């Protein structure tokens, strides 16, 4: 896994490059080094790296210039700073341009490994989201609708949850750019909005299928072995809970009790409730929707 990650270490002190190599290669990372910003740019014009570890103070092309160049030309590359002077203004500049983390010099192997691991996680998490942000475009009418909801609730205290509920109704899910728009509109930070979205199970950041299947995992349904039906659906649609079928027709979710225990086990497709389902019945019912 680690060897899929390509790292470029840029530092004018060869000892730093060598120690990075020793530590990170043993963990299976793919590592290259170079002694200055200029050389780094030449290398990066040829090859894409996942991560760049760079010193700030270097002759000719310094770290900040290199970071600016990377941001412009290789925006997908994650940047980690190696620095002997973590308090300097240059660090502030670097933070503003956007880096993942920094390693203070001198460093122990443990610190380097820890920072690397986090940086790798960070780029892995970020990759699909950013891709989606590029491909998802929402029609202006949808955005207008969102703005209308925001302005309607704007001055009411505690309105973030109702706004998110309404916006999820409009868009179908709550992707990052919608969350950002809401945050801006309500005068909150994106982190505040995201903390609510991630806390409540009602909110989803993934688009749902044309038909949303919800399986009740309440006690009554559990006692009546709803799991067998759930497994059958997974097998039938070839998806897991929380996923959407390839043709975007169905999505599958589980819920904690729909309060229709008299009909257990219960399945809901969109708004319609089906009671006393069995592995045989669920495929028949779903079959009617295709």
């Amino acid at each position, binding site marked *: 896994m680690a060897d899929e990650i390509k790292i470029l270490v840029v530092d004018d002190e060869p000892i730093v490059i060598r120690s990075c190599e020793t530590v990170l290669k043993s963990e299976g990372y793919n590592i290259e080094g170079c002694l200055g910003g200029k050389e780094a740019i030449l290398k990066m014009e040829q090859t894409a790296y996942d991560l760049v570890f760079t010193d700030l103070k270097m002759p000719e092309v310094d770290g900040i210039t290199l970071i600016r160049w990377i941001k412009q030309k290789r925006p997908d590359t994650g940047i980690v700073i190696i620095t002997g002077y973590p308090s300097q203004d240059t660090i502030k500049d670097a933070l503003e341009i956007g880096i993942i983390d920094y390693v203070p010099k001198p460093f122990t192997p443990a610190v380097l490994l820890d920072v690397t691991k986090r940086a790798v996680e960070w780029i892995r998490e970020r990759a699909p989201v950013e891709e989606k942000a590029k491909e998802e475009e929402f029609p202006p009418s949808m955005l207008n609708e969102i703005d209308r909801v925001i302005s309607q609730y704007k001055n009411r205290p505690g309105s973030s*949850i109702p706004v998110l509920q309404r916006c999820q109704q409009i868009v179908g899910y709550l992707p990052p750019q919608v969350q950002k728009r809401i945050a801006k509109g309500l005068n909150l930070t994106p982190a505040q909005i995201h903390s609510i979205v991630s806390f409540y199970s*009602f909110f989803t950041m993934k688009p749902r299928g044309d038909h949303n299947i919800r399986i009740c995992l309440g006690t009554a349904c559990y006692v009546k072995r709803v799991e067998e039906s759930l497994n059958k659906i997974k097998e039938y649609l070839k998806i897991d809970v929380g996923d959407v079928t390839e043709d975007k027709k169905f999505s599958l979710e589980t819920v904690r009790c*729909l309060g229709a*225990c*008299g*009909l257990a086990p219960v399945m809901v497709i969109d708004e319609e409730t089906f009671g006393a389902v069995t592995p045989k019945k669920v495929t028949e019912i779903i079959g009617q929707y295709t």
Partner: protein
Amino acid sequence: MEKYRANLLMCAGTGCVASGTPKVRDALKAELEKRGLAEEIKIVLTGCNGFCAEGPVMLVYPEEIFYQNLTVEEIPKLVEEHFLKGRPYEKLMFKDIEKKHAIPLMNDIPFFKHQVLRVLRNKGLIDPESIEEYIARDGYMAAAKALNEMTPADIIKIIKDAGLRGRGGAGFPTGLKWEFASKSEADQKYMLCNGDEGDPGAFMDRSVMEADPHSVIEGMIIGAKAIGASKGVIYVRAEYPLAVERLQKAIEICTESGILGDNILGSDFSFDLEIYLGAGAFVCGEETALMRSIEGQRGMPRPRPPFPAHKGLWDKPSVLNNVETLAQIAPTILNGAEWYRTLGTEKSAGTKVFALTGDIRNVGLVEVPMGIPLRTIIYDIGGGINKKKKKFKSVQMGGPSGGCIPESLLDIPVTYEDIIKTGAIMGSGGMVVMDEDTCMVSTAKFFLEFTADESCGKCTPCRVGTRVMLDMLTDITEGRGREGDIETLEDLSRDIIATSLCGLGQTAPNPVLSTIRYFRHEYEAHIKEHWCHAGICSNLCSFHINEELCKGCGACLRGCPQQAVVGEKKKPHRIIQELCIQCRTCYDACKFGSIEIRPAVRKKTTEPAAKDEGVKQ
């Protein structure tokens, strides 16, 4: 109002609707028109009747004849027989199991006979969307009395004397809660309703909100007057769309009719009410978490004190009452504390609504006086286990915070005090019956999965502790259990209970503790013998055919997805253990009880069944 010869009260609760009420209603309407009866007979869609097991159901007024399992096909015959010829149609009536005769009248049916309706006083009788029908059943009389003739202290005294305790689970005295908030000085107070019914297996509040939304609103108006609140919020789960719709309509009608808003019913009291939709977090049933959620934050509990009666929603004094509690306020104000105390016991007065579900014949909603034995609810009202040959194993009360009560304790009276002694809790009213085919270790695991998932993450013992316990239970159910696991589970439980901040964490280990207490042998069998007696944990069981009981009918052979069953017709069959995946299909298919569940066998031995031959279940 026009007069009709008969009213047909069709249940339009969630259960019956899913079973087909809309189609049956259309067919019935068309048939009545065809027969020229539309002027004489009126169809009314009511809220949940409670007898969900036999839906769609319908009650014919004035005779009170009860029809169940209605189908579109039977409608013409029903109309012809009952409404043209005047002969009630037996085929669609409830049948007595033993005597096999039909029981025409609703109140003669055992399911209804033992019930006393206070909270559910209007269930299945009124159109929940009509305020006139609610008023016709004494609706808003208590509110008028409370607002015009009583002081807050008068109201609180009645509720305190009545001994009404919160029906959400913990059973805190409602009157006391109101008194605290009433005495708090503030420029703004809030009256809140908890409709975030999160316990899996409970649907009492849903039914009340759907069938009788005005009873909740009336309770809130009276409570608001008692504590001096001018604003109220009903917090409802988003998973209950019908309840939200009905409450919304009811609030609108009330506002139009001067029952909500300024100077209610001619008094100097004003109260505004709104609905707030929950977003699916179990922990929001906890009062401080619910208030954070209304404030638009993550629903995380907060240490108490300060209690919400002093610092609640937006840091103002607030009272949060459960739906069922609020629905009892109006009749108590009208009839007085003594009337309230005519039912129930000294410490657990009044009635309690239970959602009876699981492996039981009469699934549905029941309201009974507190103090009656658990056995009466399960056997007389519930009709016992739904499969003839299966035995009762346990009844789970209190959801993820509760516990499992075994057969030997079924004669205890249903009161807050007695239930808690068993290790379960009264809870909000979910009562899930389990038969002998239930594995208690898996059941405990099911609840822990729930709490581990719903833990808000604030306290480490709850967040991490439940996860650790869940991992141990998973190991036990998959055959990796070790000696000493049971004791470790008990230890961990005690720590989590002692060190969690809110009710969720403090009660999360209950399902584990209560199953260990009563079904320790099952845990031991899982760990030591690799044997799940119920045959639920597929790594810990094997299925065998008892050749003496096998009739060779072939039901198991046809059902087996693995072709693991072999045998000729009318001769005893056999299961090839190497092919068996322990899916239980054969076990469920066999009508003669010839499939036996034995400990797990080691696969790929030559004669796998032979060495377990001596072990009898």
